[in-house]
């Protein structure tokens, strides 16, 4: 589904991604771990098409299609979803209105009619229940005054609404309390199928206890320096990153 070949990306002449190779198949869950500043969020943004980052070499392919000239919104229409590490606030725009716009824009791009209000309401009800979100919450301005955990839960609510093919969760676990972590992880698991894929960026094993990855990759200094199965995450938890950094330096 996702194929990243020798991806190099820079911002303001500073190279951040230095040759990333990654392949994800439908039905798989991959986790990316790595020290602060190693380029995890940058990788997520580049996959989503943020143009501040200039791709200087390599490519990102979705279902065999090179995404180079595809705008962020078109990538979204093709099923790419990013749960942001730092979701932004949009004052005066309710969660409901935002989702309605997002869904209808995607439908429009596919030549479909707007979703009837009845169906929209049903969908909202279903997904807000899945994530145990209070309905009152949905009429509030998007992310404005939301607590850190509420923002993250709201990101996954949006993911549930949009049912993406490829979901990238950038530190969705940070800020969530223990119960919320379980609810959100369950939500993600319920949305998982053999046709979609999830890329989880995290620092902690505890999320991976719930969303069990098929593969774990370690990003360091803009490169994947180690890949393995789910046990790699446990090893990292125990040993930290130093041994890998040393290995990479050799």
């Amino acid at each position, binding site marked *: 589904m996702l194929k990243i070949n020798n991806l190099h990306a820079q911002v303001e002449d500073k190279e951040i991604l230095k040759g990333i190779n990654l392949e994800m198949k439908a039905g798989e869950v991959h986790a990316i771990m790595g020290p602060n500043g190693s380029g995890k969020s940058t990788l997520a943004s580049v996959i989503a098409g943020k143009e501040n980052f200039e791709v200087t070499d390599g490519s990102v392919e979705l279902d065999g299609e090179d995404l180079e000239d595809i705008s*962020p919104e078109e990538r979204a229409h093709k099923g790419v979803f990013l749960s*942001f590490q730092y979701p932004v*606030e949009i004052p*005066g*725009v309710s969660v409901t209105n935002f989702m309605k716009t*997002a869904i209808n824009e995607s439908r429009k791009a596919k030549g479909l009619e707007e979703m009837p209000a009845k169906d929209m309401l049903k969908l909202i009800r279903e997904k807000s229940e899945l994530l145990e979100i209070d309905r009152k919450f949905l009429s509030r301005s998007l992310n404005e005054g939301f607590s850190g955990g509420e923002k993250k839960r709201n990101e996954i609510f949006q993911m549930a609404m949009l049912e993406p093919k490829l979901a990238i969760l950038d530190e969705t676990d940070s800020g969530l309390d223990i119960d919320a972590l379980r609810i959100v992880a369950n939500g993600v698991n319920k949305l998982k199928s053999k046709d979609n894929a999830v890329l989880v960026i995290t620092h902690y094993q505890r999320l991976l206890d719930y969303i069990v990855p098929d593969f774990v990759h370690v990003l360091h200094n803009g490169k994947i320096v180690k890949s393995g199965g789910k046990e790699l995450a446990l090893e990292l938890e125990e040993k930290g990153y130093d041994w890998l950094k040393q290995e990479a330096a050799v």
Partner: protein
Amino acid sequence: MAYTEEELKKELETKEYEYGFYTDIESDTFPKGLNEDIVRAISKKKNEPQWMTDWRLEAFRIWESMEEPEWANVNYEKPDFQAISYYSAPKKADPNKTLDDVDPELLEMYRKLGISVDEQKKLQNVAVDIVVDSVSVATTFKKTLAEKGIIFMPISEAIQEHPELVKKYMGTVVPKTDNFYAALNSAVFTDGSFCYIPKGVKCPMELSTYFRINEGGTGQFERTLVIADESSYVSYLEGCTAPSRDENQLHAAVVELIALDDAEIKYSTVQNWFPGNAEGKGGVYNFVTKRAICEKNAKVSWTQVETGSAVTWKYPSCILKGDNSIGEFYSIAVTNNYQQADTGTKMIHLGKNTKSTIISKGISAGKSQNSYRGLVQVGSRALNARNFSQCDSLLMGNECGAHTFPYIEAKNKTAQIEHEATTSKIGEDQIFYCNQRGIDTEKAIALIVNGFSKEVLNKLPMEFAVEAQKLLEISLEGSVG
């Protein structure tokens, strides 16, 4: 399409004025220039009684002795008042017309404006008066309104048919001497709407006037007078458009609202005069005086969505004369390219327990300048006066400006006055967030701007809110893609 500041700027510059067509209807236009003879000729053309002619002439003399004001935060080439024609009427508009007699080309024009009279007629609850250039062309629903004793007609007709009301109220809220443009308007106003709601009557429909400048080199000086008698209610809508032209056109209107004891008036405006092109050429000079007087327990709400005009100078105000009276001002002002807006309100608290609320949302893009100017004045007898003001500015790009000039004058110690102001910018991160959810940049800006303006948009009547929202989108994004 990802968003960078540079791209946004380009995009905004390509905006086009959607209503910039010119309708080729024969019109009857006065020679350019202004003197007593022209004032007399206007009065004669309208078949006015002597008192009206004298009123105009007095205003003209006052105007002649006045200087054009300079204090607003706007820069423009002063209009040459002798280069303007002060009367232009579409020729085929007969004063005794019915809707069916209206020039088909005019009707076509309304259709382009999106306000097809035919449709409007069918549209329940909106009675429309349309003023093109200087003359009122069609008033719908006259009969329905008459049954309730409501008078809604062009002011020129009201001068003939209800001189006692016009005489009693015209100039009482905005005197001829008030300011330069008000004096000019008093001398040369050619049409506008008149509305009277009798005691205890709740007007069953929105009353609406649509203004349009069509003829080149003309000015439009309409005069609106709304009187809500005791315990009555009316919601009034005003829409404005003008075709694109290279030269600047002058629009100097006067609106007077009179809310007698326990009455309520809601006055909503969507102003979309031609703002000039991307280089700042052309556009309407919009110098408007709007003021309301509130008697005991009366309430007036001004709601405005200002997206057009090259230069706007406009301060819909409330004189809270009666005890317990309430004044409200809700405003969205959008400026783009080289537009300049200096707008706001004055809340004059004279009575006891008077309350006012001001919510102003300024949105600036391109190289435009957007100023809020507001005065809250509390007189010495106004015990327990309260005011809340909130002024928010949203900036797009780095070349535009937002300014806030709040003036507070309180002569009574019991006054409670609160003022809040914020300035924000549409961020790349907000746009990318929307993009990532499948919303393109154009739609994203519309969404963000609508969110920013929501408190004010919510105050508009439904029919208008949709139009206003669309207008905000058009004003800011243009026809890219």
